């Protein structure tokens, strides 16, 4: 494998970083991880330290459906293209995550108002809208600036039936990951960044993780190498102090990379802000924090969580994801009981009928 940072396409920006790293000492620390300044500190504002939990906070209200994350993922991870024609579902071509598509932008068209009859939408109270602080958005912006442009003002955004929402889907890197628990070879492991990773030199393609995943993420590449694949949270990049390719490519910062605890704080503020503007935002995967429409505590939360503004099913997410391994014990107990009954019946049957 080539060194992950040595690809020609990234040479230019890295030159500058290496220079800066060199200025501040630059010697690798004891862990063997790269020098004082990491690229992630410049691009994501966070330092990547093994032993801490990292993940994504995907804010679907900021996504513009550009698919830069999808392309960046394919490029960095050397993934073959999927079917390149439009699927017929909006501007979608891949339709879902697969063994060779580890990021997928869902295009959700909601232009039919009748579908939302009876749905409660909180009214917008202009007086309660927070005055946007000039420092947060830049000095020169007018006070009535709308961060997502004038086409969808916050009022329109809150009215389903007039909107087109996008959601960049990815492996959730569950805290109690069903795929990891199902894996009989130990190929799926938890890394030092608390991500869930499929070791390609161990996987034998049994496919049990595929049935175990509550989100339909991991898949076996039956047409290719016969092994299970999914998002690695760019494990190779994290080891070199770089944020994952999708988060780096995202032009609107809809995908935020960072330590999960910091991301949850960020998400909490964002939800409060959106709710003040009448948008029924909530979190999916934050292990109970502002999770009004869903409950991911069975998986102990997801390291990659989402901000949503409609029911989870609309985004193809199960409201209460199920953890199959919790049923292994009860299931086997029921087998033991049934087997005991059958043995007793067989013994009685064999004892009671002597031969001629």
């Amino acid at each position, binding site marked *: 494998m*080539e060194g992950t940072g040595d690809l020609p396409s990234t040479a230019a920006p890295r030159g500058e970083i290496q220079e800066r790293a060199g200025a501040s000492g630059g010697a690798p620390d004891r862990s063997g991880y790269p020098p004082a300044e990491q690229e992630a500190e410049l691009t994501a504002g966070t330092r990547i330290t093994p032993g801490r939990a990292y993940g994504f906070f995907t804010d679907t209200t900021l996504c513009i459906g550009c698919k830069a994350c999808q392309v960046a993922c394919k490029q960095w991870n050397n993934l073959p293209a999927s079917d390149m*024609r439009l699927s*017929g579902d909006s501007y979608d071509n891949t339709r879902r995550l697969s063994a060779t598509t580890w990021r997928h932008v869902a295009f959700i068209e909601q232009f*039919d108002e009748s579908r939302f009859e009876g749905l409660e939408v909180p009214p917008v109270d202009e007086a309660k809208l927070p005055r946007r602080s000039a420092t947060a958005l830049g000095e020169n912006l007018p006070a009535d600036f709308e961060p997502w442009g004038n086409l969808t003002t916050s009022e329109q955004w809150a009215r389903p039936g007039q909107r087109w929402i996008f959601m960049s889907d990815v492996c959730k890197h569950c805290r109690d990951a069903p795929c990891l628990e199902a894996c009989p070879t130990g190929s799926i492991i938890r890394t030092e960044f608390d991500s869930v990773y499929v070791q390609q030199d*161990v996987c034998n393609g049994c496919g049990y993780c595929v049935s*175990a995943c509550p989100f339909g993420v991991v898949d076996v590449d039956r047409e290719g*190498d016969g092994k299970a694949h999914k998002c690695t949270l760019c494990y190779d990049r994290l080891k070199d102090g770089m944020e994952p390719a999708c988060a780096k490519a995202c032009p609107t910062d809809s995908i935020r990379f960072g330590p999960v605890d910091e991301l949850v704080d960020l998400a909490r503020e964002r939800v409060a802000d959106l709710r003040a503007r009448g948008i029924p935002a909530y979190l999916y995967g934050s292990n109970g924090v502002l999770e009004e429409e869903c409950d991911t505590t069975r998986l102990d939360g997801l390291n990659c969580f989402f901000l949503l503004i409609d029911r989870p099913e609309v985004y193809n997410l199960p409201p209460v994801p199920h953890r199959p391994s919790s049923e*292994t014990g009860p299931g086997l107990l029921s087998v033991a009981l049934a087997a005991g009954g059958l043995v007793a019946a067989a013994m009685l049957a064999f004892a009671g*009928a002597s031969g001629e």
Partner: protein
Amino acid sequence: MKARPPAPPIKESTWEWYIPIYLWSGGISAGAWLAATAEDLAGESDRELIRAARYIAAGGIGLGTVLLIVDLGRPDRFLNMLRIVRPRSTMSLGSWGLTAFGAWSGAAALLQALDDGVLGRRAIFARLSRGHASRLFHTMGLPPALFVGGYTGVLLGTTNAPSWARRVKLLGPLFIASGVSAGLSAVSLALSGRGRSTGARRRLARAECAALAAELGLALLSRRSARTLPSGRAEGRAPRAAHALTLGAGMAVPLAAQLWSSISGERSRLTTPAALLAMAGGLALRFLTVAEGKRSARTPDDTWAFTGGAPGLGSAPRDGRPALRPALRPALRGRSARPRIERGELRGVITIVQEDRIRVMDPAGRGYLLTVRKGRASQRDVERWRDERVPVVLRYRGTPDVHARVYEITPLRTLPPSTS
């Protein structure tokens, strides 16, 4: 105009037809082993019955193991199943159970072969294979045997396919009951051609009654549970008929026949067809149950019902209208539905090697992404060709950058043997 079915929120099992056959043959092994044990402990240690049961148990496990390995995406790595023990993974537990019972039943078959005189008749073989030694041997093998027969139901249940997951406590008992009924039937069939062993066959028939009754009852409960999900309610006529046929001809009819022959006490001509029907019923049950789980995973409303969601939502096209205007559809459909499988040849230099995937640059500077399957070239060779910029000729099937598998890779320059 029919809207395109929504992309399901979960993925269906990757298992192919090998797996239902394994689920069945593993159950037969368990049932045969139970027959041998019961005959040894409670019956009259009929040698013919025990002989048949030992061979059937080993044969069923052997067949099942081969099928399991064939179903793997990478069959050459099947031994990786024994790298770890993971109590939370039903498949890990099953791999170990299968290994234990495979070894045990294999030893039983070997012992039986020695007793049958493959190495000549010796008293020591007979003593090892019969009497107290045999009773101990069968009793010790019973727990792993029953585990292999029953864990398969839990294996289906501990997934996220709603139809399986909802029945997790039912499928295990159903599969072990069905495995015992099919295993007893298999032993009974093996004895059918002989004039002897009528007592043993009567004992088998009596046990068969209990197993079939349990199987039928559990199968009815399982049916009822499956029908509570949207995919079960919307079931087509063909699967419904297949289920009815399995319950009727594969369970109820053999049960009636076995009951009749045990009550009447006559040597009934019905037992052989009944045994065949019970075995076929068990196989059909496995295929139908696997199909139910796959259909359920493909049905978004099943997942919503199972995970506390509302039906009808989810997944494009959202508003109950087709995502594209009909006029646009034929234009899209005009282009082929899937990339055609082509063959091709490519010359170039390997620029990137990532696991089994390589990127090749042709002389014009265009890059192509292909997959090299194991056995075509060693990873080390491919990496050396990359490092030394050796031009290679690749023959592949498929479309580069989408799905292309290299089946032949030839370097145009030979490198000196590697020193490391």
